[in-house]
């Protein structure tokens, strides 16, 4: 059953240098209890997609110019702001990248969790505090009772991210959007936090949208993956498909750029140089004609420079936006 349906979402920013098409036609479905990964390099529109779903784009700078976001049959793009506030944190919750600064330094951890519970579930102060205690235990913070009355600076980065997860999940949201939740944490903590998120997802039945630039994280956690490039979708597949048979040249480039443990170690212990994708991401403040990836693509043909390919499953086993997907797949095989 589709829980969240995003169709042709377009979010543009209006700057002095022109219109920046940060998100330019994104569509995806999210089923209840599913984990969807959105990957792409910095500036490809992943975070803007997430912020757009919660309608958190500052109106002074940009807005959603087209498309639809349906949560459980309810259109979010046209919802009045007060109704939208009731969705935020209650039905769709979000975890941000920076656990060090995402908690208010002047309020105790317990207050910050209880605030959300009181706001959305209408519980009394006492009951909200109990709920906060329960949540801290759920995210496995030791000595939860004492931690409730501590301030964020008394907690480590990993613990703060656990608190963020507790705040996000305290009202049983249907969708949890995690925007680079582990980027600021060190590797050992990353795995713990991801495991915790997945475990709580199973327990509470929330769907997760995991936004990351780390394909390793995607491989470990996501069932389905959406690859974005320059504000557009380039490929959508199950995690297994994507890693086993990438169809888009960009996806292939990303995968080749990953360090692998089984890379052969050469003379003097030097591993082969990691592959890189030549060129840079196109500027988004000018209209892109044709495929956005064409200038960097090894498989480019004339058609790519004039007409943008649509995301379609016609050229292969899963949806991809590439005229030459067939050739890419054959070459890979």
């Amino acid at each position, binding site marked *: 059953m589709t829980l969240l349906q995003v169709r042709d979402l377009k979010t543009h920013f209006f700057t002095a240098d022109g219109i920046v098409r940060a998100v330019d036609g994104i569509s995806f479905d999210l089923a209840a209890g599913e984990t969807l990964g959105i990957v792409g390099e910095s500036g490809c529109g992943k975070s803007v997609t997430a912020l757009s779903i919660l309608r958190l784009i500052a109106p002074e700078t940009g807005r959603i110019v087209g498309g639809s976001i349906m949560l459980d049959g309810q259109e979010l793009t046209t919802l009045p702001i007060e109704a939208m506030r009731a969705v935020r944190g209650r039905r769709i*919750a979000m975890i941000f990248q920076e656990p060090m*600064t995402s908690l208010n330094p002047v*309020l105790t951890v317990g207050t910050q969790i209880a605030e959300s519970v009181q706001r959305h579930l209408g519980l009394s102060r006492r009951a909200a505090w109990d709920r906060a205690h329960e949540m801290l235990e759920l995210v496995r913070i030791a000595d939860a009772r004492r931690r409730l009355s501590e301030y964020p600076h008394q907690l480590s980065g990993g613990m703060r991210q656990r608190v963020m997860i507790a705040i996000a999940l305290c009202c049983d949201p249907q969708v949890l959007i995690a925007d680079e939740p582990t980027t600021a944490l060190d590797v050992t903590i990353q795995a713990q936090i991801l495991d915790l998120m997945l475990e709580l997802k199973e327990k509470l039945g929330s769907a997760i949208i995991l936004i990351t630039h780390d394909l390793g994280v995607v491989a470990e956690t996501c069932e389905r993956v959406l690859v974005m490039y320059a504000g557009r979708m380039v490929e959508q597949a199950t995690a297994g498909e994507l890693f086993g048979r990438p169809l888009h040249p960009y996806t292939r480039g990303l995968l080749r750029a990953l360090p692998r443990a089984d890379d052969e170690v050469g003379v003097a212990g030097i591993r082969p140089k990691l592959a890189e994708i030549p060129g840079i991401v196109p500027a988004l403040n000018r209209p892109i004609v044709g495929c956005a990836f064409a200038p960097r693509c090894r498989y480019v043909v004339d058609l790519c420079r004039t007409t943008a390919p649509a995301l379609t499953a016609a050229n292969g086993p899963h949806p991809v936006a590439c005229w030459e997907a067939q050739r890419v797949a054959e070459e890979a095989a």
Partner: protein
Amino acid sequence: MTLVATAEDMQRIASPLARAATAIRRNPTIFIGSVLLAALVALTLAAPWVAGDPFRQAPVNRLRPPSEPFWFGTDQFGRDVFSRTVYGARVSLIVGFAVAALSSLIGLAVGLVCGYFKRIDAVIMRAMDGIMAIPSILLAIALITLTRPGLGIVIAAIVIPEVPRVVRVVRSVVLSIRAQPYVESAIAGGTRNAKLLVRHILPNTLAPLIVQATYVCASAMLIEAGLSFLGAGVPPEIPSWGNIIAQGRTFFQIAPWSIFIPGAFLAVTVLAVNMLGDGLRDRLDPRLARRL
């Protein structure tokens, strides 16, 4: 410094007196400023007991230099300069504190709204720029010609041009706090505007606001003295430092004490308030405070 706590260290931490000593050593300006200010407040409160009648004229004792019964000398009417100076401190302190409190409160409210609601920000800030351009002395003279002179009018005349200064400080803090991830995170959690302002943004503005309030207080005391000196301040029959200086002006060459003494009090008071402000700024700065 050693990282191992000795018994002596523990004792030092435990004793409140020793802790106070450490705090003073670390930040002597707060200490000096607050002690001077506290002494002045105490003196003002104790005025009826320590000072004589500031209004009693005694022509026999006119223009006496500082000596046994009149510590600070007497003025041209034989009034005791010490008594007048002590009572004059009342006016300065009342004006200083009242202006600081009022302009902080108004400035806080306006600043919060300006920094948070961008739509009305430009309009209010232009109005504030306009108010800031009014010199308080001219405003006071205008207000007094419209009404009768009094403490309230003086306070109002100083508060009005001070408000924009507070607004600017608060607004700039709100703008920077607004961009903090925890504010965005609170918005993403569905927090309402009013709650966001009061719970998440307001507490962060208090430290800079307190510091700004001390500067406003010091400048209000100076402006009040200036206004009184020009005859646009508190009515001349009330002994305020500005009035005492203004009345002593004609006899400056033969009785300089009636100008120097209230002038020195004014200078020391303003210095004390400024020192307190500087000390608080250092103490309340979150980057420095964390060292505790």
